[in-house]
């Protein structure tokens, strides 16, 4: 493949960032918006071409029989520290990176388009910093694309930090608002803390394996073809040998490899908001809603999932680490789903829903084993990543449209909007159906396959995740009914009736809704699998339907329908049932409403323990011992100079006298001694 297209995919967003960032203030608002959107549109087309070429061209460097190969389009030496320690920047094309290219560019383009309408008020007045907003969006798109096409773990780390930085910039976009500033700081610090683990994991891993490259770590070269690799169990065994021959030390009960993988997963936990590092994501909703849709629902937060998927053959060698991932993911999924049931802020509900759904993907990767259905969990996780990106971006953009129309984040200010905003209503409903897992919407297929994978691994996880899936359906429809039904919308005096937003905002909704309807039929089993082998012999539009495990599917459908029915009964019309439910479980409700007091726990740990017990003494030492010694020296010098400053009187006659007496004494000594 000609490297010009991959290079352009990375270069166009970067150039847009530079142009909009440096010259944005010189442009008028619509030009900046059109420029950013057009740049992203071109990138999207190029990414589609790349992905299409990779999956369907049948070129020998991309596909070998029924196996998708890894292909390094280009790999440029960037920093050469020593002969063996070289950091490269490149473009790796394999099923998951091609998939991510499509996801990122699609969502990003939709968000760019949507922001043209969102980032101005009802009178068409543009938000301050509109150009800056587009510059940051482009920076984010560039960083995220660089992350997914990384050829080595170090490049991934670099772009990993870049997406973190652009996320920080965008959360803090309204930097005059104190809550936005603290939310951006929180997101940055929490993910940085997680990235510390990631970095240590990278260092351990590369120390023992001697390489950064994904292709060396996870796959074997295909004979006779440069830059083409095939994932296989044998390479994994080879790396295990490296670990064993280097006398892989056991550290605190785990092998070094397990530790490295768990530490790398910790980086993923930070970015993907897994328990207990999830606290930043709900607060990140302080950013503009399109940003939440792009970064905190569809792309950046799944970077952790992508990381695990990228290193999946390594994780497969240490099943312990996969088990840890399952436990973390399952706990997070349940926790976030419970919390989402009681939140008032619609973006918070969606944020916790995102956490829960990402946890689904993590669980799916964690339960994946090659023995069961060709490692269906891996495929299901990636599938869910794809479909979730589409319908969750849709839901967030709908929420943005609602917030834009109402001017508030709380559903208590909404209620009964279905007549006023029909397009938003229908698209939001499609999003809810998709996330709830109702056939034939996208979420049904991916979630069903995740549940199948859980079923193949352990009954416990299957029941657990089915329950969480039911909760998902419940809280999403609770949100849907509370926004669009419940009671008649009350229009405040002096306000216009809420209405659908301009076409720049509704078009992305319609497009994403359409994708959410049909994405489930994409035969993912033949596109993205853990080792590149096709799962099905032949594909058609109905492949996914034909290959369903109907026992699992029917049960999950029943659960979802039951949950939706419950939500309908409770929230369609205004009634006292929610209040009664709340009385029934007051403690659970309170804990859920307060997000199980995680933030308070962190506050306690940081303020009471770390600040008081560690930082205070250090600060005292710094202020009194270190500063004190410096001040003491300064004080001594000052006193000494006060004592002798009389000598520097400025009286030249005195100077001359002193000089003369000294010279004469010397002269007298000389004369007396020499003569």
């Amino acid at each position, binding site marked *: 493949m000609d490297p010009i297209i991959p290079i352009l995919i990375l270069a166009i967003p970067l150039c847009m960032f530079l142009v909009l960032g440096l010259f944005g203030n010189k442009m008028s608002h619509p030009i900046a918006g059109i420029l950013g959107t057009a740049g992203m549109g071109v990138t999207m087309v190029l990414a589609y071409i790349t992905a299409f070429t990779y999956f369907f061209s049948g070129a020998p460097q991309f596909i070998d029989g029924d196996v998708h190969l890894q292909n390094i389009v280009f790999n440029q030496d960037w920093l050469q520290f020593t002969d063996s320690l070289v950091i490269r920047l490149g473009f790796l094309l394999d099923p998951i990176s091609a998939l991510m290219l499509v996801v990122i560019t699609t969502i990003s383009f939709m968000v760019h388009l949507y922001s043209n309408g969102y980032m101005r008020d009802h009178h068409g007045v543009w938000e301050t910093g509109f150009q800056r907003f587009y510059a940051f969006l482009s920076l984010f798109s560039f960083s995220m694309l660089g992350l997914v096409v990384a050829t080595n773990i170090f490049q991934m780390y670099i772009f990993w930090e870049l997406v973190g930085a652009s996320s920080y910039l965008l959360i803090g976009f309204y930097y005059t608002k104190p809550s936005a500033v603290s939310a951006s700081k929180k997101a940055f610090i929490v993910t940085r803390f997680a990235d510390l683990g990631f970095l240590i994991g990278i260092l351990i891993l590369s120390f023992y394996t001697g390489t950064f490259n994904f292709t060396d770590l996870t796959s074997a070269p295909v004979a006779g073809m440069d830059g083409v690799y095939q994932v296989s169990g044998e390479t994994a065994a080879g790396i295990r040998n490296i670990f064993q021959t280097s006398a892989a030390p056991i550290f605190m009960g785990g092998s070094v490899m397990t530790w490295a993988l768990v530490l790398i997963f910790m980086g993923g936990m930070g970015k993907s908001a897994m328990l207990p590092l999830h606290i930043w994501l709900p607060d990140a909703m302080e950013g503009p809603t399109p940003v939440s849709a792009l970064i905190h629902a569809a792309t950046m937060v799944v970077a952790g999932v992508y990381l695990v998927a990228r290193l999946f053959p390594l994780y497969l060698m240490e099943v312990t680490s996969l088990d840890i991932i399952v436990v973390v993911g399952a706990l997070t999924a349940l926790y976030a789903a419970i919390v989402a049931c009681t939140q008032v802020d619609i973006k918070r509900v969606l944020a916790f829903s995102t956490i829960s759904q990402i946890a689904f993907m993590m669980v799916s990767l964690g339960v994946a084993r090659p023995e069961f259905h060709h490692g269906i969990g891996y495929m299901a996780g990636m599938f869910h990543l794809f479909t979730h990106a589409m319908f969750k971006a849709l839901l967030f953009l709908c929420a943005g449209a609602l917030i834009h129309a109402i001017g508030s984040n709380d559903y208590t200010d909404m209620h009964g909007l279905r007549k006023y905003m029909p397009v938003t209503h229908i698209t939001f409903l499609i999003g809810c159906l998709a996330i709830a897992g109702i056939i034939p919407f996208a979420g049904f297929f991916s979630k069903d396959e995740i549940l199948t994978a859980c079923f193949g691994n352990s009954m416990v996880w299957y029941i657990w995740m089915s329950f969480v899936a039911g909760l998902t359906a419940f809280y999403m429809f609770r949100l849907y009914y509370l926004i669009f039904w419940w009671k008649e919308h009350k229009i405040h005096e002096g306000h216009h009736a809420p209405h659908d937003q301009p076409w720049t905002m509704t078009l992305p909704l319609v497009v994403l809704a359409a994708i959410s309807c049909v994405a489930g039929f994409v035969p993912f089993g033949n596109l993205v699998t853990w080792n590149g082998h096709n799962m099905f012999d032949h594909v058609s539009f109905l492949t996914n339907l034909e290959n369903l495990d109907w026992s699992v599917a029917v049960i999950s459908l029943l659960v979802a329908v039951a949950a939706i029915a419950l939500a309908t009964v409770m929230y369609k019309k205004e009634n006292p049932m929610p209040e009664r439910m709340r009385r029934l479980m007051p403690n659970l409700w309170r804990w859920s409403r307060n997000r199980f007091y995680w933030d308070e726990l962190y506050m306690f740990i940081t303020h009471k323990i770390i600040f008081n017990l560690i930082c205070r003494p250090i600060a005292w030492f710094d202020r009194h011992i270190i500063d004190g010694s410096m001040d003491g020296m300064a004080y001594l010098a000052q006193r000494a100079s006060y004592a002798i400053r009389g000598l520097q009187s400025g009286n030249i006659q005195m100077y001359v*006298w002193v000089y*003369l*007496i000294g010279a*004469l004494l010397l*002269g*007298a000594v000389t*004369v007396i001694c020499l*003569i």
Partner: protein
Amino acid sequence: MESVGSIIMYFIIAVAIIVFSVLTVTTRKILRSATYLLFTLFATAAVYFMMDYEFLGAVQIAVYAGGIVVLFVFSILLTSRPGDNTEKLASRRRVLGLTAAVAMLLVAGYSLVSRCSMFVSRPEMGEIDMQQVGTALMGTGYGQYLLPFEAISVLLLACIIGGIVVARKR
């Protein structure tokens, strides 16, 4: 062996130098101080004449006595108001100055007396005529001083300009 006349001449000059020097720095009136300085300079010029450097003596009288002292007198008249040209010396100040001067006199005098007694005679020297002086000033060879001469002329020019700039009314 010198002639009696020159010995008498020498003593007159030496006494004049000593007396007028002391008077220059001890008198209270600044204008008198300038006048005694003038006499000291004349005595110095006399020393130069005795040393057979007539040109130097003439320069001494013309530049020092004729130029500098006149400058002093003018500046004294410009800067002092009538009545305040007397100044009382603080005794501590006088003691300090006296200490330094006497110490200087003792140390330098002792070393002079103990070392210089060997140079007893004054060698004969031919008349230095103006031609010699002019050649030495205008040449660039050994023992000739064109470069310092030019440097001095530039210095004087700078002084003229500097004096005007500094003293001019703003």
